[in-house]
């Protein structure tokens, strides 16, 4: 039994996993692929449509194409805005956290708390928080004479969504950076003191290079999550005012469920999926490159 290096019996053991993967991902994805290549005139009445859903989608001169391009741009802009705040802020806070002593546990738990709150609840909290009449945040800004109105003003809406994401997910960057900082041996700091390095020089020459790997992971995770943002804008702004905060995921749901335009929506979700996959691949490549080059 054990004399053969190749034993076809092994296939039997992976059958349950295969079945699971089949039902969880392969069949659903193929259904979407199926939809994206057909048009339907009613329930279960499909006919072949070739690649025309994709061509329309990727051509900004068509109505759906323009809508897709706008939503894509908005989503990238949002990811960029959120990352631009969360990464520097996360590193800054991580540098300020205590390194040892009783305060470590307390500050880490407090830092991690926002991450434990479900998206929906965060959205609802902020929906109320940002209201001009009874919301503390909205009422205060209005009271100070600032033109703040989440439902009417697109700048207010954008700022609010970015602030929500920063509030909710900067802790992830903080915790990752903190772990990275803690992994730097004391000797580095001691050597820097002996070498007479300034605080800034320590940050640039020791901390930042040593944080590079965790930062790539942090940026990857935050990019993926912000690129897929859905719940918060839906709860707080409903994608408005107008379509100011209608990100890809929201548009997708609007087209698929609101308009029951299954073909367009399927094509859109596949393109969406490929973008995320590509981003993942780029980050993975960068990460493995870093691993190979740096041995410390």
């Amino acid at each position: 039994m054990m004399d053969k290096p190749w034993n076809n019996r092994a296939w039997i053991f992976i059958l349950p996993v295969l079945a699971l993967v089949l039902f969880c991902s392969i069949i659903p994805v193929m259904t979407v692929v199926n939809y994206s290549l057909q048009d339907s005139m009613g329930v279960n009445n499909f006919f072949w449509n070739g690649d025309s859903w994709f061509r329309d989608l990727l051509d900004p001169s068509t109505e759906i194409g323009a809508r897709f391009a706008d939503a894509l741009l908005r989503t990238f802009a949002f990811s960029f805005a959120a990352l631009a705040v969360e990464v520097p802020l996360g590193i800054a806070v991580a540098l300020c956290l205590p390194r040892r002593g009783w305060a470590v546990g307390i500050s880490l738990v407090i830092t991690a708390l926002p991450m434990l709150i479900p998206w929906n609840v965060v959205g609802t909290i902020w929906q109320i928080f940002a209201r001009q009449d009874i919301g503390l945040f909205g009422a205060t800004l209005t009271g100070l004479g600032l033109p703040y109105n989440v439902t009417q003003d697109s700048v207010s809406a954008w700022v609010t969504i970015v602030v929500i994401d920063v509030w909710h997910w900067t802790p992830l960057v903080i915790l990752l950076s903190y772990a990275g900082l803690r992994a730097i041996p004391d000797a580095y700091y001691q050597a820097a003191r002996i070498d007479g390095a300034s605080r800034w020089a320590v940050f640039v020459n020791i901390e930042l290079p040593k944080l590079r790997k965790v930062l790539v992971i942090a940026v990857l995770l935050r990019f993926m999550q912000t690129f897929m943002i859905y719940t918060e804008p839906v709860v707080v702004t409903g994608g408005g005012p107008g379509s100011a905060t209608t990100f890809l995921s929201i548009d997708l749901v609007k087209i698929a469920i609101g308009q029951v335009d299954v073909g367009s929506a399927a094509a859109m979700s596949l393109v969406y999926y490929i973008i995320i996959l590509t981003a993942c691949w780029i980050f993975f490549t960068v990460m493995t490159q870093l691993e190979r080059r740096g041995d410390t």
Partner: protein
Amino acid sequence: MTRITLDGIAHAYTRHPRTEKDYALRPLHHVWEQGMAYALLGPSGCGKTTLLNIISGLIIPSEGRLLFGDRDVTRLPTEQRNIAQVFQFPVIYDTMTVAENLAFPLRNRKMPKAAIAARVAEIAAMLELTPDLDRRARGLTADAKQKISLGRGLVRSDVSAVLFDEPLTVIDPALKWELRSKLKAVHRALDLLMIYVTHDQTEALTFADRVVVMNEGQAVQIGTPEELFERPDHTFVGYFIGSPGMNFLPALVDGRGARVGGSEVPLGAFYPALTGTVRIGVRPDFVTLTPGGGLKVQVRRVDDFGRKRLAHVSLDGLPLVATVPDSMASVGTDAGVAFDPAHVLVYQNDIRVEGIAE
């Protein structure tokens, strides 16, 4: 370019030390002279790194004063002390080239560019880093990285002292020897006070002019390698230095002789009758095995080291290591040993007792 004075320096990591055991470093007086090479030698946890970190300012001692020249620096931060230190594991700045790494301590002290370049070139040449100067430090081997760390320690010419904390631990054995002689050469060339922490006696004895042997937070003896070998002040020094260590035999000492078991060992000087735990100590090099004659022993084992042979024998049931002379071709189970009286030392409660020469 100053001498460094330890005035009753002691350190405890606990806040309220009560017994001697609470001290990582017990009160120590010592003057480190300019231009000398010192080694701090002792087993792990004996307080040698603590002492080093007190001198460099990474630790503020709980007691005592530290003087650089006449200046009290006990509470001064590292940056203001003019000290260079090299650590056990290579510390390099990943993003910089080798040259930038070497220049870093000088650049931080706002030295003119031309002077920095000249000094970096000089140090790189000493450590044979010149071909790598423009390479990124990150991709280099551990050996090369540690050479960079050594270079950063040596690059400042104005330092009061250069401290080494077991700097050759990560280095390949073959290269270790070479780097150590290089450090010795650098020391001679730069006329700096160097303090070198190690737990390797060969490293300490070959590198240093003076060796400070430490045990359990205490400096048990400070002396030249010869003094440590020939006249250990403490039984610990006898055990720790030399391979194998010194023989210690419980003895009754009175006058010019020591009674060991049933045998009488002659001493090189006169000793009054001693009480407490009294032992005689003698290096294996000064106990010679004889075919007959001398004190009767049973040979347990002979170790052949090529250049010399050592016999593990039993003298009235007490273990003893003796040198087998070249003239003795074969060793039976019964033999005799002869002690060299001039090198038989007497210890009372682990401390060496000076005999009275007549």
